[in-house]
C-alpha cells in the first residue's frame, strides 16, 4: 500500500477502468488541458488518445445529451464539470432525458453515464463558483448520487460508478483533492448505496457530507478532550441512501447533527432530518440539528465568506449546544485553513 491523494485516486480509478474497458472515455470542458481538472485527468490523453479523452465546446447541455447518446449506444462516458454551477446548464438533459430514459423504456436500456461535478469553496469564488446543489440531484428519481470523502472511497466508488449501468453523479469537493491516505493499488469497487462510519462515538451522531466529514473529524478531536464522543457517519452515497446505517447510529446516540456543505433550506439535510425523525422519533433526546451554508448567496469578501461557510468550530458549538455544555474557548485550536495550501486565483 502507498499513500495517494484524492485527486490521484480519481485519476487512478479512471486510468485503470480505461485500461480495462475500451468503451470508457472521459470528456468535458478543459479535461485534456494542462490544468486537467485538478490533476484528475493528467496523462490520460497521452495514454489513451484524444478520441477517449477530449475537450468540448462550452455547451454543457448538448454535451450531456452527447454522453447519454454515447451511453445508449454502447460506450461508457465520464463527463466532467469543473464547477457544479456550470452543470446547471446541463440540467435540461439530466432532468428531462437522462433521469427517465431507462424508466420510460421499461427498465431494459442501460445508461452507463458518469457525471463528475466539482464543488466546494475556493478563494473568493463568489456566488457562481461555490454551489453544491446535492438536493437538486437527489430530488430526481433515476440518478445514483455519490459524494466520496476519503481517497480510498473516491477510487472504489468511482470504479463502481463507471461499471454501473445507470447514470451516476459524483460530487467532489475540491479541498478533498489534497487529502492523502493509503489507497490499494489494484482496482476495486466500493459498492454504491452503502454508507460508512468514519469514527465511532457515543454521545452525538454527526452525519457529514463530503468535506464536512473532514471538519467533523477535527471537531471530534476537540470534543474528545472535553470527554465528548461523537460518531461520524458518512453516507457516501446520497441516492440510494443507506438509511439503516444512519438510523442505527442515531438510535444508539439519541442525538443527531447533520453537517452539510450546502444550503440548509430545502437541502439534503432536510431529507435526512425527515427520515431520521420518521424512524427515530421515540428515541431522540433532542431535535435533529442541521448545519450548512448561510441562507444567502455566497459572498466573495473573505470576512463574510468565513461567516457563510460552516466548519469544525460550527460543529463543536452545535454539539455543545445540544448537550447543554458551556461553549468552550477554541482560540487555541488549530482549524483548517486552505490558505496554507492555496492562494488562488482559482
Amino acid at each position: 500500500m502507498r499513500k495517494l491523494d484524492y485527486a490521484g485516486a480519481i485519476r487512478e480509478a479512471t486510468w485503470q477502468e480505461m485500461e480495462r474497458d475500451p468503451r470508457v472515455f472521459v470528456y468535458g470542458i478543459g479535461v485534456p488541458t494542462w490544468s486537467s481538472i485538478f490533476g484528475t485527468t493528467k496523462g490520460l490523453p497521452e495514454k489513451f488518445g484524444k478520441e477517449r479523452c477530449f475537450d468540448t465546446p462550452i455547451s454543457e447541455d448538448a454535451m450531456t445529451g452527447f454522453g447519454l447518446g454515447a451511453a445508449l449506444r454502447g460506450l461508457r462516458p465520464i463527463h466532467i464539470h469543473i464547477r457544479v454551477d456550470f452543470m446547471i446548464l446541463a440540467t435540461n438533459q439530466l432532468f428531462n432525458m437522462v433521469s427517465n430514459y431507462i424508466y420510460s423504456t421499461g427498465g431494459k436500456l442501460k445508461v452507463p453515464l458518469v457525471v463528475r461535478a466539482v464543488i466546494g469553496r475556493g478563494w473568493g469564488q463568489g456566488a457562481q463558483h461555490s454551489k453544491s446543489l446535492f438536493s437538486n440531484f437527489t430530488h430526481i428519481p433515476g440518478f445514483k448520487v455519490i459524494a466520496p470523502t476519503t481517497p480510498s472511497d473516491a477510487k472504489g466508488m468511482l470504479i463502481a460508478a463507471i461499471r454501473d449501468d445507470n447514470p451516476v453523479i459524483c460530487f467532489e469537493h475540491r479541498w478533498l483533492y489534497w487529502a492523502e491516505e493509503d489507497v490499494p493499488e489494484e482496482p476495486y469497487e466500493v459498492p454504491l448505496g452503502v454508507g460508512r462510519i468514519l469514527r465511532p462515538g457515543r454521545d452525538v451522531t454527526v452525519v457529514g457530507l463530503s468535506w464536512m466529514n473532514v471538519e467533523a473529524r477535527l471537531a471530534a478531536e476537540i470534543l474528545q478532550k472535553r470527554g465528548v464522543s461523537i460518531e461520524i457517519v458518512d453516507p457516501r452515497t446520497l441516492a440510494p441512501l443507506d438509511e439503516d446505517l444512519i438510523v442505527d447510529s442515531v438510535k444508539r446516540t439519541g442525538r443527531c447533527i447533520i453537517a452539510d456543505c450546502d444550503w440548509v433550506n430545502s437541502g439534503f439535510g432536510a431529507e435526512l432530518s425527515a427520515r431520521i425523525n420518521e424512524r427515530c422519533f421515540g428515541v431522540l433526546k433532542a431535535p435533529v440539528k442541521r448545519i450548512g451554508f448561510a441562507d444567502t448567496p455566497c459572498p466573495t469578501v473573505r470576512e463574510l465568506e468565513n461567516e457563510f461557510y460552516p466548519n469544525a468550530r460550527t460543529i463543536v458549538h452545535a454539539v455543545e449546544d445540544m448537550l447543554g455544555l458551556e461553549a468552550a474557548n477554541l482560540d487555541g485550536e488549530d482549524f483548517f485553513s486552505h490558505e496554507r495550501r492555496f492562494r488562488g486565483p482559482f
Partner: protein
Amino acid sequence: MTLARAPLPKATSIQLFKSLFLARRSEEYIVKHYPENRMRTPMHMSMGQEFVSVGVCAALEGKADVFASYRSHAAFLAQTHDTDLFFSELYGRTSGTGEGKGGSMHLAAPDQGHMLSSGVVATQIPVAVGAAFANRQLATGRTAVAFFGDGAMDAGVFWESLNAAALYRLPVMFVCEDNGYAVDTPRESRQVATSLTEAVKPFGCDSYDDDSGDVESVYALARAAVEKAHRDRRPAFLSIKCCRYLEHVGTSEDWHWGYRDKAVVEREWISRDALVQQRARLLSHQVSESAIAAMEDEIDKAIRASVARAAEAPIPAPERLYAGVFHEKA
C-alpha cells in the same frame, strides 16, 4: 442544395407507399378510437408530415438510430413498422416497450433503432450526436438521425449540437420537419433567419432544402446526404417543408384557431398530399388499382389486429410503478 435524380425502382416506390400508408392509416385509427378514452396520452399527430420520416428511414435501410420528437408516430412506424408495439404503448399495456410508462411522446424500440422520442423541444438532438460518436467508435455502420421541427431550431441546444457534430466530424443526420409553426406561432415570429439551410451552412455541414412534399424526393435526398456525410465525415442538415394537418396536440383539426387558413393549406398541401401522390405514382408504374387496394387492405387488417391485441393486452400491475427506475438485469 437540391438534387436532380433518376426515377426510383418500382419496388422502392411500393415500399415507400406502404410505409406512408401504414403511418397514415395507423393515425386514422387513433383518430377513430381516441374518443373512447382508452389511449390516455397526449397525441402529437404526424398526419401530413409522414413523408419526411418515411423517406429518411427508408433511405437508411434499417441501419438508423432514430431520435425523434414528441411528434413521433410516423418516425416510429417508418423505422420499425411495428404496430403491435406502437398501439400497446399508446394503450398503456405491458406489451408496449415502456409498458405504458412512455406513451405517445416517449415511444421506443431500441432494438429496432428507434430510441426514446422526447417531449421537450430539441432535447433529442444532442443525444443523436452522442450516438453517432458511439457508432463511429464501435464501427457499427449505423447512422444517427435526429428528427425535429422548426421550433427546435429556436433552441440553443440545436446549435450546440450542430457545432459539436461538425467539430467531431460526426455523420449525424439533422432532419428538420419544417411545418412553419411552433404550436400556432409562425416561424417568422420566432426566427430572424429567412432560410434555415443558409443559417446552418457556416457550421461545416452539408445542408439540403426540399419543398417538394414528395416522399421519393426526400428518400433520394436522404440517400445522397447520408452517403456524403459518411464519406466526408461531416453532419448533414435536411430542411423539409411540410404541413401538419391536425392540431398541435390532439386528433382534431384546428382551423377555428385562426392562425392558418384552411383554403390555403388545402391548396398548397392537402391537394398534393404525399400519400395520394405516391398512390398515383404506383399506378403510373403499372401497379394495378386492385393490387394497390390489396396492399392497403393487408396493412389495414394488420393495424386493426394490432389495435385489437393492444386493447385487450394486460395493464401493468400496480407494483410495476416502482420497477425499472434503474436498469433491470434480464
